[in-house]
């Protein structure tokens, strides 16, 4: 057994034990020099130790105050709001889940993990066996003490073909969960997966008490317990007095759904709610110009794209999609439509928000001349090329319109058909020869690429099937050498960039807004409200 890879830079330089020691030092009031000396002795480089100190000092300068109430406004909500973590589908579910439940690991802003209900996480050398030591003295809201049985019960709900879990694919490589003793469980995998603890830190793997079947209320280990839960309306949490960790600072945390974006913005600007998700790009400057209101934006890997089906006659023309990629006016889209709240896309899904991002692939830019070359080669002339689009996310329709306009200049004739978002995912997506899509970020590059780019994936949008890619994608899961891992991920991203066929012009940030008295915001780039990780740490500054 060896301490295994951990993608949080702070934790890779330091083991968990050293990290705890460091936190202790900070609490005792160590100076920068003390910390540096200790770190240098532990073998860290100057640069790394400097950044560690800044992070900790920043946290210490903002000691949370207890008390007060916050109302956080969600968008999508409805009768399918649930307290069953396996069935979560929306950002509202994820946020609510964090209020009431805990998980084995907790994700960090760099998309590594840190221990939560598991206090020690180890694996064998090829990452096919993972052991989780369960924290002692953790209590559920019902008063029951957390043991290995609860963890095994929870994990088994995500296993097997009949599982109702929306996230079973993230743990499909786990053969079984074994109880070692009351405070230790082991996951036995059928293929290596170095990212398992990260997957277990995501929204669906919240730990339940053994035998839980009724989800009218939540019996979790989270910092808040349910005071009120009404699907499609609101969830209200009050502090759980026996919460094992730090957090849960508010007297009351309310999560309220406001579906209409104008109503949500009104409520936020009027101060009826303290924070809102998904600020419309148009309103960014308005919020920035208002005293006491701030943008809460996270650079993320979410994106919009245009996908030609490579297995259909009308859309398989290689020169056609090469030209489409070169016709994307990425900078203009980012500035004009997303108001700068995003990053340039490079026709592959892994951007700098991911740990395994490859920065070496040259940025593809708007290049009408090269596009013209490809368009002439394609032999399409001015044959109309239909592109089906819907407002599935900011920029989804605009990316097509911009491409259409640039296309006109070189003689290409794109016909943009705009359809409604209602039913889009069932009737259009994956069916039309060329259409648009919108994707959320996933916790790791491997999960993202397995979901949407592996040859046999259900959501493989272009039906691109490259044996070398498929093989490498599975291989890299067991790669424990950092340099080799990086090289392999670069190869994977380059292959998509060159061969997959989709145009991916921009990645969009998660753009929320919060009043300036909303403190303890987290920055995990997986979802709104700081990756839905903020409920634990939120506190109110003006009480």
């Amino acid at each position, binding site marked *: 057994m060896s301490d295994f890879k951990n993608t949080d830079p702070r934790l890779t330089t330091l083991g968990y034990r050293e990290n705890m020691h460091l936190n202790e030092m900070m609490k005792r009031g160590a100076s920068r020099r003390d910390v540096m000396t200790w770190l240098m002795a532990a073998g860290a480089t100057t640069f790394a130790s400097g950044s560690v100190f800044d992070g900790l000092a920043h946290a210490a300068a903002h000691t949370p105050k207890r008390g007060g109430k916050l109302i956080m406004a969600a968008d999508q909500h409805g009768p399918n*709001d649930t307290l069953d973590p396996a069935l979560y589908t929306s950002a509202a579910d994820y946020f609510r889940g964090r209020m009431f439940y805990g998980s084995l690991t907790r994700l960090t802003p760099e998309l590594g993990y840190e221990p939560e209900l598991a206090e020690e996480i180890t694996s064998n050398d090829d990452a096919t066996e993972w052991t989780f030591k369960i924290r002692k003295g953790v209590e559920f809201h019902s008063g029951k003490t957390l043991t290995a049985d609860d963890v095994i019960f929870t994990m088994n709900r995500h296993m097997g073909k009949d599982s109702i879990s929306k996230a079973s694919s993230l743990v499909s490589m786990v053969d079984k969960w074994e109880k070692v003793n009351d405070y230790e469980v082991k996951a036995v995998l059928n293929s290596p997966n170095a990212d398992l603890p990260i997957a277990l830190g995501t929204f669906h793997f919240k730990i339940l008490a053994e035998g839980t079947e009724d989800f009218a209320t939540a019996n979790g280990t989270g910092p808040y317990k349910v005071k009120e839960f009404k699907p499609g309306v609101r969830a209200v949490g009050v502090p759980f007095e026996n919460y094992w960790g730090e957090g849960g600072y508010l007297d009351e945390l309310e999560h309220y759904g406001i*579906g209409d974006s104008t*109503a949500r913005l009104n409520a936020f*600007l009027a101060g009826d709610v303290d924070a809102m998700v998904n600020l419309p790009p148009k309103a960014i400057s308005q919020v920035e110009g208002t005293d006491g209101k701030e943008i809460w934006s996270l650079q993320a890997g979410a994106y919009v794209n245009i996908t030609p089906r490579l297995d259909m006659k009308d859309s398989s023309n290689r020169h056609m999609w090469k030209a489409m990629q070169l016709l994307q006016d990425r900078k203009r889209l980012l500035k004009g439509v997303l108001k700068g709240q995003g990053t340039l896309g490079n026709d592959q899904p892994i951007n700098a928000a991911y740990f395994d991002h490859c920065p070496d692939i040259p940025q593809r830019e708007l290049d009408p001349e090269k596009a013209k070359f490809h368009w002439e080669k394609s032999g399409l002339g001015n044959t109309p090329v239909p592109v089906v689009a819907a407002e599935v996310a900011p920029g989804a329709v605009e990316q097509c319109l911009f491409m259409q306009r640039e296309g006109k200049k070189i003689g290409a004739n794109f016909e943009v058909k705009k359809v409604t978002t209602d039913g889009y995912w069932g009737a259009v997506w994956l069916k039309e020869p060329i259409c648009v899509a919108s994707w959320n970020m996933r916790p790791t590059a491997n999960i993202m690429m397995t979901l949407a780019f592996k040859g046999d994936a259900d959501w493989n949008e272009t039906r691109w099937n490259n044996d070398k890619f498929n093989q490498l994608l599975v291989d890299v899961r067991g790669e424990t050498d950092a340099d080799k891992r990086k090289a392999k991920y670069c190869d994977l991203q380059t292959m998509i960039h060159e061969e997959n066929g989709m145009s991916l012009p921009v990645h969009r940030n998660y753009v929320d807004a919060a009043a300036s008295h909303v403190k303890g915001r987290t920055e995990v780039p997986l979802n709104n409200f700081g990756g839905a990780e903020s409920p634990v740490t939120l506190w109110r500054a003006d009480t």
Partner: protein
Amino acid sequence: MRGLILRRIGIGLITVLAVSIIIFFGTKILPGDAAQIRLGQQATPENVAAFRERLGLDKPYWVQYLTWLGNFLRGDLGISLASDVPITNLIADRYKNTVIVSCLTALIGVPISLMLGIMAAMFPGSLYDRILTFISVTLVAAPEFFTATLLVLLFVFALDIGNAVVVGSTEGKGFFELISHFALPIATLSFVIASQLIRMSRAAVLNVMSSPYIEMAILKGVPRGRIIFRHALLNAIGPIVNVVALNLAYLVTGVIVVEVYFAYPGLATLIVQGVQSRDFVLIQGLGMIFCLTYVILMLIADIAAYASNPRLRHPK
């Protein structure tokens, strides 16, 4: 009289039955199978088949319809497809919310509008009448979201009073806090119903005022106020009650825009959410509740009209 009422109830029942057929088969035509939707995309064909059997979807349509109608009559609206809880649980709270707002609007909006309308009828052609007519015609033309936006801009952002959305539960809030939450939605709704009520009550009273017996009363020298309240209004009640009932039914069923705009958790937002999550069972149940509300309110209006007007009871 009793025969008339019974006949009217009979017509109401037939309406409900006809609507139930339309609702049931209408939702059957919509694409997507309830079992498939409930189980999601990863479900195996065997799972779907088993679930269809459990929901009774493998039986012929008319058997399904009769079972559904029978359950509805017993107060069982079925289980939500989206969340697996009984529809009645989802609706109960929302129905209460909607009724609260509707009643408050009716209590405030209806008497004021009727007063204004009748006063306009007392002085037809006066400056007051003209201004009122102008305002009410303008209000008829202004959609709810426009009125709502204006009110929010004026009160919340310019004057800094009131709330832009209805947040939080009603429990544990003081009287003034409740007023600040509910004032704007109720004002918006009152404006919407007021314009119609003012114009209809004015027209109904004026219509009666032009009849010969009123002319007689005028010639006899009866004061104008007494003519209107004593002689004209009773005859005008029939049409006015009908308009009031129509508006009340609108308040329960048609306030989608206002509820969405003010993020108010009532029935209308629930049906919007139901459509978004393809929850057919929920939509069917809500459809029937809306239909019942309409039919019952119309029934009450008609009975009131019969009671106030003997001529309706004894048609020539």
